[in-house]
């Protein structure tokens, strides 16, 4: 596969971009990573994703595909040889998709609320909600993995990639809040899984270190505050 045939418009700190990187790595697909400046969006980005103007965008040949979960499905379908990212059985596929939607629509906003909590009381309340969600995900993991190491079973699959790419932000959140989010006394199976995910070859070098994400968040907060101040 010629490297120029597959391009990924992305930004390192984005867990959504990371998902696509891991998926491409799992499939051993060569691709060109084109880093994007999200403060000053490129012509290519605006042209390739006119609806959302966001990363990631996968450009295959000259066809752009947007939305991380849509892209991961696309990668699994175009490069359909092993390893398969989605499970084979339709019910297992539905279960994986269900949890992916839960993670993106319900759980990750809870994590964001926790990271952004300003006082101890709202932090505690936010943490409680995050842990409730993690309990559901712990059960989902036990059911999905069927005794093996990943949501996908023996190998990394779709749901591993979906949840796993948030781990950088989860770790950053632990630094910022001083709380243990992935706690072996609460969700032991997920703690073990997180370890295995992060040390997997396909994930190597993709997810930024938590300290880098903490700096990135602080930089963004400063930029937002400056923008606020200058618009007053």
């Amino acid at each position, binding site marked *: 596969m010629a490297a120029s045939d597959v391009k990924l418009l992305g930004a390192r700190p984005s867990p959504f971009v990371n998902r696509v990187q891991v998926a491409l790595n799992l499939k051993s697909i060569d691709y060109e990573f084109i880093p994007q400046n999200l403060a000053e969006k490129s012509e290519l980005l605006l042209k390739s994703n006119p609806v959302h103007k966001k990363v990631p965008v996968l450009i295959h040949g000259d066809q752009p595909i947007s939305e991380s979960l849509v892209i991961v*499905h696309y990668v699994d379908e175009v490069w359909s040889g092993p390893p398969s990212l989605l499970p084979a059985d339709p019910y297992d596929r539905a279960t994986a998709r269900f949890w992916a939607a839960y993670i993106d629509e319900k759980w990750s906003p809870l994590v964001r609320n926790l990271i952004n909590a300003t006082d101890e009381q709202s932090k505690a309340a936010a943490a409680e909600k995050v842990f409730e969600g993690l309990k559901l995900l712990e059960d989902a993991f036990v059911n999905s993995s069927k005794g093996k190491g990943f949501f996908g079973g023996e190998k990394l699959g779709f749901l591993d990639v979906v949840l796993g790419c948030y781990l950088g932000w989860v770790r950053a959140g632990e630094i910022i809040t001083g709380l243990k989010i992935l706690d072996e006394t609460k969700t032991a199976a997920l703690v073990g899984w997180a370890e295995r995910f992060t040390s997997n070859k396909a994930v190597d070098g993709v997810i930024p270190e938590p300290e880098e994400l903490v700096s990135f968040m602080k930089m963004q907060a400063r930029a937002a505050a400056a923008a606020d101040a200058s618009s007053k």
Partner: protein
Amino acid sequence: MAGEGVKLLGYWGSPFALRVRSALKLKGIEYEYQEEDLGNKSPLLLQSNPVYKKIPVLLHNGKSISESLVILEYIDEVWKHNPLLPEDPYERARSRFWAKFVDEKCVPALVGTISKVGEELEKGAREAREHLKTLESGLDGKRCFGGTKIGFADVAIGWIAYLARIEQEALKIQLIDQQNMPVLAAWIDYVLEDPVMKELMPPHDKVFKHMIDMREKLIAVVSN
């Protein structure tokens, strides 16, 4: 088509349940339908969808599947005839992209507007029109999202066809602009005329009354 123990928990007014009913009908799958009273949810519903406790839920061979778009993909994968998703991976990606766009942008805009008044209503209508205009670009000039016949995205998005028109009527706002969105307006006509979709759309008067009632309740809540 043998039922193979297919049951759908739904609600007559839910666009999400309508998606699943459309898919089952397009594939000719026999199923048992259970209408849920959303104010008094059945034990079966609470048990089958413990995470959200919402309809639609598809029960098949003793297993439950929730979330309408997840259910659509499941139906398409289990019953492979009359496919909803196109064969080409890029076209599949486009179908999924637009179904997701509708859920993220159009649903909140259309549903959110129902309870608004005055300037907020104008603003809501404007936002909804913008999203509908963007949605139109997904049609790419074609008569439906599936290309030549109703497909995954049309099933996912089709409820907009009846809801947007009724909302215009009930709230006295403009959402579908014939001049500004001719392709989308034509798509709406196409969907409303499709025999399968037509049969499943809830009756105009029932939806109209339901929307007026809901609007009055929501406005009362907001002003208290």
